[in-house]
């Protein structure tokens, strides 16, 4: 049995310079380890000229015991997206991946707006030449977009090394559907977790719509897979919700799910009994956008809570052991 103990919020909108046009939100924290500190990239919201939110990436540095080292977050420069590109209406999430001591890549979950449905997403890539302080896009287009069995909404990349290859966990859309309770509302999306492999970080072999995390409810949407290796096991955290009425109905909103694997490819979803989370005030109503971080013999979980991360992100630490056969 696994238990994540709540250690509380570690960053709040007090860490955002709200005088500078930010509309709050610190979403989808993504950790990157440096020598002596931990950097966390996240998406915050600005409003564009039509008052629609645009997610942009900022970062904060933390000590190894999770004290924030910055008063205000710094905007991450990734250059400007070109007109009509896959990421012109925001980046959410931004996911760093360290290939070596010197080489760090960034995976971009890019958003662009559509007419008949809200949005389309695709995954792009960028690289840093100054230890993660600024990134440059490799190409104006995405490395992963709609493909066989994955018709739209390819996003939420998370990359981990597996010997000579890399595995990317990501999500893809399966359908846009209307809510029977609210048939005139904009269509709702359904999305699931898949994976791809690569040896060069740019070209990915996909599995044509194969969904790697089991579910019981056809309306379940799964997002933000994050994976860490621990002893002989692989542990995944993700979030899931109902396709409809998820914003205001707590029963249908985001919660965290967990899965375990021995090889990174075949996953067993853990029941809520097998993996529990202690909740605090900050995530009592909703738990979402998880990121796993392993340090020494500890596994930490950084995630958002109520209202999709409007109030910052918090920390849990894993207690108990991952044993074969749980």
């Amino acid at each position: 049995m696994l238990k994540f103990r709540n250690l509380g919020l570690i960053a709040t909108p007090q860490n955002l310079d709200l005088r500078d046009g930010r509309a709050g939100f610190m979403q989808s924290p993504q950790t990157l380890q440096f020598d002596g500190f931990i950097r966390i990239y996240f998406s915050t919201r600005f409003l564009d000229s039509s008052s629609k939110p645009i997610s942009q990436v900022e970062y904060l540095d933390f000590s190894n015991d999770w004290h924030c080292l910055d008063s205000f977050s710094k905007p991450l420069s990734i250059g400007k997206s070109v007109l009509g590109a896959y990421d012109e209406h925001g980046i959410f999430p931004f996911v760093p991946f360290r290939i070596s001591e010197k080489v760090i890549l960034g995976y971009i979950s890019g958003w662009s707006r559509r007419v008949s449905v809200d949005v389309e997403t695709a995954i792009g890539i960028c690289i840093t030449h100054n230890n993660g302080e600024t990134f440059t896009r490799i190409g104006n287009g995405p490395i992963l977009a709609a493909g066989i069995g994955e018709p739209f909404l390819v996003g939420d990349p998370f990359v981990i090394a597996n010997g000579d290859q890399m595995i990317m966990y990501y999500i893809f859309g399966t359908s846009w559907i209307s809510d029977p309770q609210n048939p005139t509302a904009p269509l709702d999306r359904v999305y699931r977790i898949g994976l791809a492999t690569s040896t060069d970080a740019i070209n990915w072999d996909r599995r044509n719509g194969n969904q790697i995390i089991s579910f019981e409810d056809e309306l379940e949407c799964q997002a933000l897979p994050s994976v860490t290796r621990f002893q002989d096991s692989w542990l995944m955290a993700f979030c899931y919700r109902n396709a409809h009425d998820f914003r205001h109905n707590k029963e249908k909103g985001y919660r965290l799910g967990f899965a375990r694997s021995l090889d990174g490819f075949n996953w067993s979803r853990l029941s809520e009994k097998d993996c529990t989370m202690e909740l605090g005030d900050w995530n009592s109503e909703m738990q979402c956008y998880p990121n796993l971080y392993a340090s020494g013999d500890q596994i930490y979980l950084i995630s958002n809570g109520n209202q999709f991360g409007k109030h910052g992100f918090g920390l849990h630490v894993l207690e108990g052991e991952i044993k074969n056969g749980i």
Partner: protein
Amino acid sequence: MKGYIWNKIGKIIPVESVARPYWSQEYFQAPNTILLKDRLRVFFCSREFASEGQYISRIGFCDFSRDGNFTFLGYSPNPLIELGKPGAFDEFGTYPLSVFADGDLSFGVYGGWTRTLSVPFDVSLGLVVSRDSGVSFQKVLEEPILTKSLDEPFIISSPKLRKFNGVWYLYYIAGEKWKIDNSRMEPVYKIRLATSTDLIHWQRHGEDLIESKLFEEAQASPDVFEFEGAYHMYFCYRETSNTKGIGRGYRIGYAKSDNLYDWIREDSSAGIELGPEAWDSLDISYPHFFTLNQKSFLLYLGNEVGKYFIGFAQLEKL
């Protein structure tokens, strides 16, 4: 095609004398042919009248006798390719289509249109197959076979599907940039190539095939064929600024190759120019080459990218 000239014959579809089907109220675009035992089939794209100022392009065909008289035999009663579901790449139109008859099957690659908020549209390529020579098509996949990628960020369109020596060649265009010209959004796109052995997985060549001759030139309809021992490409190209101005619209260009990858542009050998008819005096575009009874023909669109007529011309050796 040095030493050749195209003699214009006129409009191939007798638009004035035959009633049009409901799906083809405006435009005749992107003609592509297959030759059947008893007829010549010309696939083309057309539109119902605009709804709220926006069109949805559909694909159908019309048939002609293959005796050399080009007697008009009729239109397809309905469009041939279903539009995609909400959110799909081909929800808002299908344009253009290229068909390749391969034994009993006819494969089609088509441009699927979606509508985006910051720019007017985006296009990706889908794959369909027909078992009845194009009377009906089924989608092989609901998803695109070719869509935006690292260095081709949008507008993957204008397909021409070919098979040479057992390998599938897909000539197409890829968007390079969207520019804003007098508050009008104009895409710049270039001719590219991908190859495949199964029609589903494509290897992109990754380079512009045709050297641009205009500033920020847009290129389309890369119609590639083998003729008299060489590879030829007819295509069209235009300006991307002041696009409504006289002389700014599409013209027809030409290139040749001995390996299907490396092309030498030689527009002066195209052998086809604007006019003299009023309906093809402003722009000509979307060339398509075919042979019938040992004679060679070129279909092309007249003014306003085929808003009114498809023209055809016959090849003459000087």
